[in-house]
Structures are given as structure tokens and as C-alpha cells.
């Protein structure tokens, strides 16, 4: 019984520690953004909390030219919160509206950080503008990778048709070897 209580306490401490690291990564990213975008005071970065999950449901009411994923962010949150205390996560808000969401996780040895899910609000409902969702996600992931000591950033399962798009953001594309559950990805070596 004592062992279980101690393990639970230890897990809570680890969970709190990584939550704190993500907060620091977001704060440093916000500071960075304040030098880059004129409307920075309208941009807020948060964790994916219940407010963000609720707001993401509203994206389905906005027309989008890109196909929709079958899964919901509530579903993704259940998986990542349960499985990965060291996860990467971020919600991007602009003028009080949810504009982007992302989840990822470090590799076992924390040498790489994988961004596994990125979605932006459709253009009509995106006051930040879809063109800033991925760059801000990459900035925050870079800051978190720096904290963890990761030397490579990966974007997993890029949506078909967006390879050139990610390559223009300094990533290199690697096509899957065909092995089961090993998707296509793009990578960038961090200095």
C-alpha cells in the first residue's frame, strides 16, 4: 500500500514537473513572439484545457477545404494525457478565439521531439491566420526541445499535399520505409 502511494506521489511530481516545463516553454515562446508579430498582444498560448477542447468543437461548423480527421481533439487529449506526462501540447488563441492545437511527445531518450498532431482553425474562423499556426507551433516545440535537450524536431504524418509547405519551413521529408505504424515524417536538426 505504501509503495503504491509513493509511486502515485512520484507520478504526480513528474507530471507537475513537465507541466511546469511546458509552461516555461510557452512563456519563452510568447516572449519571442512579442518581437516578431505586431499584433502579439492578441496572441495567447495555453495548454489544451477543457476550454480549448470545447472551442475545437466549433471548428466543425466552419467550412474547410481540407478533409476532416475522424478523431476529435477530446479523443486525442484522452490518449496523450493518459499515456504521456512528458508530452508536447499547445493551444494558440488570437483575440479570444481558438486558432490552433497540437500534440506531440519526446522519444524515449528525449533526443527527438515529435509533433504528431497539428490542426488550425479553418481560414474563415481563424483571426490569427492559418499561415501562422505551424510556425508558432514549431517555435514552441523548439523551445520545449531545448529544455529537454532534444536535438531533432520531427513532424509526423504530414497531410498529403503539404510536403513542400513544411520543406519551406526548413524541414526535410522522409518517406516511410513501409514498416507498420512508422509514418512519413519531416525532420529538422536543432543547433
Amino acid at each position, binding site marked *: 500500500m505504501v509503495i503504491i502511494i509513493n509511486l502515485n506521489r512520484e507520478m504526480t511530481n513528474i507530471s507537475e514537473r513537465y507541466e511546469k516545463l511546458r509552461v516555461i516553454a510557452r512563456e519563452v515562446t510568447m516572449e519571442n513572439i512579442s518581437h516578431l508579430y505586431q499584433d502579439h498582444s492578441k496572441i495567447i498560448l495555453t495548454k489544451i484545457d477543457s476550454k480549448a477542447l470545447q472551442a475545437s468543437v466549433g471548428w466543425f461548423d466552419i467550412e474547410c477545404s481540407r478533409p476532416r480527421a475522424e478523431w476529435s481533439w477530446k479523443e486525442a487529449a484522452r490518449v496523450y494525457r493518459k499515456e504521456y506526462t512528458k508530452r508536447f501540447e499547445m493551444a494558440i488563441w488570437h483575440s479570444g478565439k481558438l486558432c490552433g492545437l497540437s500534440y506531440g511527445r519526446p522519444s524515449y531518450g528525449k533526443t527527438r521531439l515529435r509533433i504528431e498532431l*497539428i490542426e488550425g482553425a479553418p481560414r474563415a474562423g481563424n483571426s490569427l491566420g492559418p499561415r501562422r499556426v505551424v510556425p508558432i507551433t514549431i517555435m514552441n516545440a523548439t523551445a520545449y526541445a531545448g*529544455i529537454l535537450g532534444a536535438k531533432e524536431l520531427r513532424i509526423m504524418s504530414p497531410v498529403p499535399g503539404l510536403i513542400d509547405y513544411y520543406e519551406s519551413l526548413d524541414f526535410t521529408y522522409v518517406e516511410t520505409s513501409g514498416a507498420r505504424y512508422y509514418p512519413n515524417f519531416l525532420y529538422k536538426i536543432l543547433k
Partner: protein
Amino acid sequence: MSEKNKSGLISEEMLIREKAKQALKKNKTPLYSAEDEGGLMSGPMSSEEMKKQAKNDE
């Protein structure tokens, strides 16, 4: 918490912040991507694949 522990925690946090700052300083990201419509940008389409990807160890 003792003053010594407090100052230890503060200096650790400063060190962590500096790591994040240095990572951003050394690795610049373009401010804008190419023209975009929003929607899913990375991740599998199916719910099953999303869960498999999330649970797949490297």
C-alpha cells in the same frame, strides 16, 4: 521551504528558461508558412491510426 531551497528552485528555473531561449535563438523559424486553408496539417485521418501512432514507440 527554506531560503536555500527557494533560491535553488529559482536558479533551476532560470537555467531552464535560458535553455529554451537559446534553442529559439539558434533555430529561427520563418514567421509565416506558405498559403494555407487551416484544417488538419499533420496527423493520421482515422481515429484508429491516430491512437496507434500515439502509442507507437520509436
